[in-house]
């Protein structure tokens, strides 16, 4: 295992602070993720998985606690710094693929480079083609998202997440919207990329079978880490839904 990539200490997240409907979703979380891990984040609905993922993904700030991502203390960064760190360190795969409908598959994959550099360089285009080839979509790179099946869209999203060679990919129920065959295919793809390139993955999933194929399972219950350990140790995966 590599160096510490993510260090969360005493993370709290409170919504509607100071108002009658104030609600605390995360209650003092401690979590470490090392470079090269392939971890599953499981837990019942409302346990705070998405909130944790948003905090990890720098899409939301924690209300209290310390978060160090790739050696940078997140609370010390302003919005632009946060955005830069997110761009350079993280990749996202969402449940509803979230491709940009106005752009082709290839343009969606090169978009992170366009955001960063303003233009798509020939090198960036070559990398996008390589990635699309790796996810088995070399033949479909000119199609728009509407012309792709759900599984294909999710594979494009994975290629996009990998475009800028992130250290960590955060996947929020990447197979939640897919049939079993596509699910297996998409999950297998992430696994393969992890094994070949060494990119770290944190996958939120409801599917115990998929969680069982990860190296580590982190279970969240009511905003606290209930269980955290290697897959082999954590008994039968069927207990978590």
């Amino acid at each position, binding site marked *: 295992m590599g160096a510490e990539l993510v260090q969360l200490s005493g993370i709290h997240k409170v919504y509607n602070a100071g108002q009658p409907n104030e609600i605390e979703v995360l209650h003092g979380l401690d979590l470490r993720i090392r470079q090269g891990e392939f971890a599953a984040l499981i837990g019942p609905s409302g346990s705070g998985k998405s909130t944790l993922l948003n905090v990890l993904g720098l899409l939301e700030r924690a209300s209290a606690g310390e978060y160090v991502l790739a050696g940078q203390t997140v609370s010390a960064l302003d919005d632009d710094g946060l955005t830069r760190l*997110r761009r350079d360190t993280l990749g996202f795969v969402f449940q509803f693929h979230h491709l*940009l409908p106005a752009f082709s598959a290839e343009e969606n994959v090169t978009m992170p480079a*366009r955001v960063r*550099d*303003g*233009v798509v360089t020939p090198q960036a285009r070559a990398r996008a083609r390589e990635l699309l080839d790796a996810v088995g979509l070399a033949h479909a790179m000119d199609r728009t998202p509407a012309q792709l099946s759900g599984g294909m869209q999710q594979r494009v999203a994975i290629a996009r997440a990998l475009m800028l060679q992130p250290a960590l990919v955060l996947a929020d129920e990447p197979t939640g919207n897919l049939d079993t065959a596509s699910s297996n295919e998409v999950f297998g793809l992430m696994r393969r990329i992890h094994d070949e390139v060494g990119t770290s993955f944190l996958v939120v999933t409801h599917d115990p079978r998929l969680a069982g194929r990860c190296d580590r399972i982190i279970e969240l219950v009511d905003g606290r880490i209930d269980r955290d350990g290697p897959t082999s140790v954590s008994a039968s995966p069927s207990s978590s839904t």
Partner: protein
Amino acid sequence: MTKALPLAFEFSVALRFLREGRFQSLLIIVGVAAGVAVVAYISALVTGLQTNTLNKTLGAQAHIVISPPDERVAPAWPVAPGERHASDTQARAQRLRTIANWPAVDAAMSRRAGISAVSPMTAGAALARRGEATRAIALTGVDLARYDRIVNLREKLVAGSFRIGPGEAIVGKTLAEDLGVRVGDRITLSTDSRSDSVRINGMVDLGIKDLNRRVVIVPQRSAQSLLDLTGGATQIDLRVNDVWAAQALAASLARELPCKVESWQDVNTQLVTALNAQSISTTLIRSVVMVVVVLGIASVLVVSVVQKQREIGILRAMGAQRSQILRVFLIQGGMVGLLGSVLGTGIAVAMIKVFTTFVRGADGLPLFSITLPPETALQTMAMALAAGLLAAVAPARRAARMDPAQAIRM
């Protein structure tokens, strides 16, 4: 890494967003075009109308007239400051007088910047007689070549030749009809003291019937002797380069010269009022249309921001800064404004073409010429671009402020 053009990301995304919302974009661009067309057309029409009115009015009169000061009754008793006293004096009758030292004034005016022509004149009231008919006339003694530069008299000649020697005259065409004379006939001109017979050498149509009924143009020397003002000039006419600067120039001349100086604006106050009212109306229409255009673009962009919420969230997750998102929407507004203004200018040009082709006076000629000056077109385009950017400010800020986590969840 190749160097990116500034705003390359923003432009590419803005363009794609506009293309994606094809129907919406088209509608609002047409809306902007309609606004721009109205503004450009009205501007061209009013400018044409005003130019035409001014040309007609100023074609027959000097821009500035210098004349001797009015004679006033000097107070019989000096009034000390702060002291009041009642008196009743009858105003003096204004005699026909010459401008003191007028050749010097003439020379000074000819040298002055901003003045394109100077023509001294000796003019006064007289009678024209032929047989039983007598008409009151405005006897005008000028150097014909110099006077022509003030009022373009040569273009207004309708009969005879443009030339007057001693004993010759050019008369208004209505006066000629009234007296029943033709070119070559003689009429008698008489004043209080003198009388002379002149031969009619030409007839002019000054465009205003009242002037045509009264004008008689003779060499300045003839007028001087008829009016008993040997060597004198009763007024000096000036033509200036910029007609709208005439009033300011007249005011400064009035301070420098011991004379009465009147600009065309002083003489035609009603016309000036009418022209100003027109200009204000045009500005008002432009402002209202501009507001409508801004609101139109803004409303479409607000809707677009709401529709694109998720995409904005994705772009933010991919590392787009708030400022980049802000610019994406500002550029959309600017593009809508610019495209609309190009289209609108085209429509305005077409409308002007239609106007000049189909709207004609009784004589079959266009009523007056209207064109869209390039600077007006550019100004209108700049206005539309500014309107687009302005309209985009609020929606763009809204898009940039959006919380990425929330935007993605939508």
